[in-house]
């Protein structure tokens, strides 16, 4: 153990330390809540809560399966049609739906699929039939969740598809594999780890969904646990109850994270060179792939187009000069910059530590390896484990118990929340990638006796570059689109763009709100399109 540890010390220690700090923070949060409640922690839970819990789990399960299905189909089609104009723009567009303020995206969806959305209008015009309010109900919840998550899943899965060595495709071809066999033996093994980590992230995201579920659910039978948490914190001010509900969510996410991290990747999947595939897909297959790309492009892009159409009519000359807009813009952008840098650093350190415990060539066989692996994975998913309302409440209580200035505490709270929020996504992109570079290059690097720095320069960075750029862009936009836990109890010294937007919506100013949504979308899209370009790896350029 010691000998092994010494060798991987520089990889294990920083990440483990961060992981411990995150868990310590979570513990402190719950402890603060525990000391602030009046001690009815052990009272009975309402039977209504069980109903909510049951539906929440059911809904999250369905949403996850559907999101992954759509994600795999789309990534599969895109992976096999790798050369067409606008492909990278398309991939960027897909990612943006996840990071825009949820409510804006959902209003975009309603613009297409709603009762008076374009779909109904067109069918009214052509066939004189309206599908009515089909969107509202479980179907609507699932549609929105697939929309929000499948695009992200497809981006991450596309990366896994692209990392499959071309030699394998050659082999499959020479063995005469059918498409299904090719998927099963060549592609699926490469996707497995991404599917699991993304699946659990999506599950937790859908599990904690609140505004969307209420908006599209249409009936209290389709409520989630978050509604109960909101009720407990805001309406009843029952911190004990909030704590109890938060603990339920914590346990469920802990189980999920442990289940998904118990999985090992066995096949070395990493793009090695640039063996070009010389044959084209069969005509039928190409047709299928193109239809998939076409249909899903429409599905993902049209709602964004609605946001543009709604926003374009706004009076930008006035909006852009509003002092509050400028203030919110500056706050949002500077917070996003700092938190995205922090996210990238922490995500790299956590993934770097974690791969030691998952690789059999490293420390996987050591005692405690499994435990530490699960612990790091869990600490990276804290945001999904702790309801954001409870996170905000906990922060506020901690601030009350301390003597720090409100400004410092608010900044710290916002940054922490933003980093915690982006980490699950950052990790689900980086962990599989770093696992693979280690699997592939460990022997070589160790035999060459590379130092940590050398290893990063020559081995890791060239391969992780594009992932790092993507993680940075993702974290940046997440922070940009976040309503901020501070809005719950915080002061208005911290106005962010989404908060400004909600404020506009809350006082009849829908046109201005649409304008701000448009600005936010342009901002998010430009970050998504240009930042990853800066990080594009040399290998990809060739």
């Amino acid at each position: 153990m010691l000998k092994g540890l010494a060798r991987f010390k520089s990889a294990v220690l920083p990440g483990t330390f961060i992981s411990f700090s995150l868990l310590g923070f979570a513990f402190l949060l719950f402890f603060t809540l525990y000391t602030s409640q009046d001690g009815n922690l052990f009272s009975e839970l309402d039977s209504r809560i069980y109903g909510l819990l049951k539906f929440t789990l059911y809904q999250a399960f369905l949403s996850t399966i559907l999101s992954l299905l759509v994600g795999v189909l789309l990534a599969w089609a895109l992976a096999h049609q790798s050369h067409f104009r606008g492909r990278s723009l398309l991939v960027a567009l897909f990612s943006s739906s996840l990071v825009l303020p949820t409510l804006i995206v959902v209003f975009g969806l309603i613009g297409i699929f709603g009762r008076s959305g374009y779909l109904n209008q067109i069918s009214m015009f052509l066939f004189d039939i309206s599908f009515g309010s089909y969107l509202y109900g479980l179907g609507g919840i699932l549609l929105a969740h697939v929309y929000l998550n499948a695009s992200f899943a497809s981006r991450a899965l596309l990366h896994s598809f692209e990392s499959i060595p071309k030699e394998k495709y050659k082999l499959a071809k020479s063995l005469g594999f059918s498409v299904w066999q090719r998927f099963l033996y060549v592609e699926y093994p490469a996707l497995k780890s991404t599917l699991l980590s993304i699946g659990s992230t999506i599950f937790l995201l859908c599990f904690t969904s609140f505004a969307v579920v209420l908006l599209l659910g249409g009936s209290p039978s389709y409520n989630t646990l978050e509604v109960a948490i909101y009720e407990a914190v805001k309406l009843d001010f029952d911190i004990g109850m909030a704590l109890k509900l938060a603990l339920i969510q914590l346990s469920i996410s802990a189980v999920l994270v442990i289940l998904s991290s118990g999985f090992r990747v066995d096949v070395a999947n990493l793009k090695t060179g640039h063996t070009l595939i010389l044959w084209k897909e069969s005509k039928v297959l190409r047709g299928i792939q193109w239809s998939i790309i076409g249909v899903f492009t429409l599905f993902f892009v049209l709602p964004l187009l609605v946001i543009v159409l709604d926003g374009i009519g706004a009076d930008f000359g006035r909006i852009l000069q509003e002092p509050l807009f400028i203030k919110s813009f500056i706050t949002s952008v500077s917070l996003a910059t700092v938190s995205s840098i922090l996210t990238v650093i922490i995500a790299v350190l956590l993934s770097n530590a974690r791969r030691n415990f998952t690789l059999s060539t490293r420390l996987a066989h050591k005692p405690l390896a499994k435990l530490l692996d699960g612990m790091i994975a869990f600490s990276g998913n804290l945001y999904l484990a702790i309801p954001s309302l409870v996170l905000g409440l906990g922060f506020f209580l901690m601030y009350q118990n301390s003597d720090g200035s409100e400004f410092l505490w608010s900044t710290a709270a916002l940054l922490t929340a933003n980093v915690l929020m982006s980490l699950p996504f950052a990790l689900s992109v980086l962990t599989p990638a770093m696992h693979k570079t280690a699997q592939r290059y460990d022997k070589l690097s160790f035999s060459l006796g590379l130092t940590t720095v050398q290893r990063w320069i020559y081995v890791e960075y060239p391969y992780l570059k594009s992932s790092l750029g993507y993680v940075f862009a993702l974290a940046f936009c997440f922070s940009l689109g976040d309503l901020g836990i501070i809005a719950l109890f915080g002061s208005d010294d911290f106005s962010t763009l989404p908060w400004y937007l909600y404020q506009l919506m809350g006082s009849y100013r829908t046109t201005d709100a649409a304008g701000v949504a448009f600005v936010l979308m342009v901002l998010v899209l430009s970050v998504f399109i240009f930042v990853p370009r800066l990080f594009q790896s040399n290998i990809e350029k060739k």
Partner: protein
Amino acid sequence: MLKIIQYLLLATVMIMATEKPTLTIYTYDAFAASWGPAPKIKEAFEKEHHCNVKFVGLSSSIGALRKIQLEGKRTKADILLGLDTSIAQVAKKTGLFMPHELNTTKLDLPVPYTDDTFTPFDYSFFAFVYDENKLKNVPTSFEALIKMPKDFKIVIQDPRSSTAGLGLLLWVKSVYGDKAGEYWKRLAPHILTITKGWSEAYGLFLKGEADMVLSYTTSPAYHIVEESKSNIKVADFKEGHYGQVEVAAVLKSSKHQDLAKQFLAFMHTKTFADIIPTANWAYPVVKGVKLHEAFDSLHRPKQMILMDGLTVEAQRKAIVDEWLEAIAK
């Protein structure tokens, strides 16, 4: 050198600022917004009383109350402004607020209001709002509402997260009493969806998703004044309309109690009353104020239904449960 001058300047500004007392008022964000009533009220009160007024806008008025509760004795708030009478009782129970010692009997309110701690500053009525160009057959009562065609849809707010949603719940309860659950069961097919807050519901309505939305009788005034649109109308219900009276109170922990009480009194002056209608889209509580002409065209219910705050507080859970039971599919 420049730095030192900067610091000196900053220090002077700070000293100048601390010369006058600062009155801190916690409220909901739309009230504190730059287009809301706060900036004008701040200016007027500062001029009259030689002080600073700081409005702190929270995500909701309940949120502001919870913030004060969490901050306890250390809170910087002198006044909490913006709760409505249905929730004010909850705030009163915390014991954090002090009597206002004002005579509120002469105020212009459709209902007698006698609370000794929270004092009103504006009011409106809950109502269903529709677009005249789209809806021709307008329901004029709760009974007519459930008899509307099958594809007629309304959008409402969740009473567990929105004061408007709670308002509708109490409205139906006041009209139907023990039969409220039954009524909700019959209304359920017409409910397109239930949103977290007023903004989402109103947004859905403006997008054309629902035929009517639960909002206020004063909502059309915004569209007339700010957008010159007169097609947004209110459905006049013959059972009467439930009211929302917004109130404010001074905190016991306030270091500027006299000034804070002066502010409460200021809420009942003509200056304040003139600002409210076209900034907070509600009726002022002072008699003899000339309202913006847009308000002339509004339907102003003669009678306001309002449940007593204590009753609401005692029955809220039961009423919400009854509602959940009735409309769950």
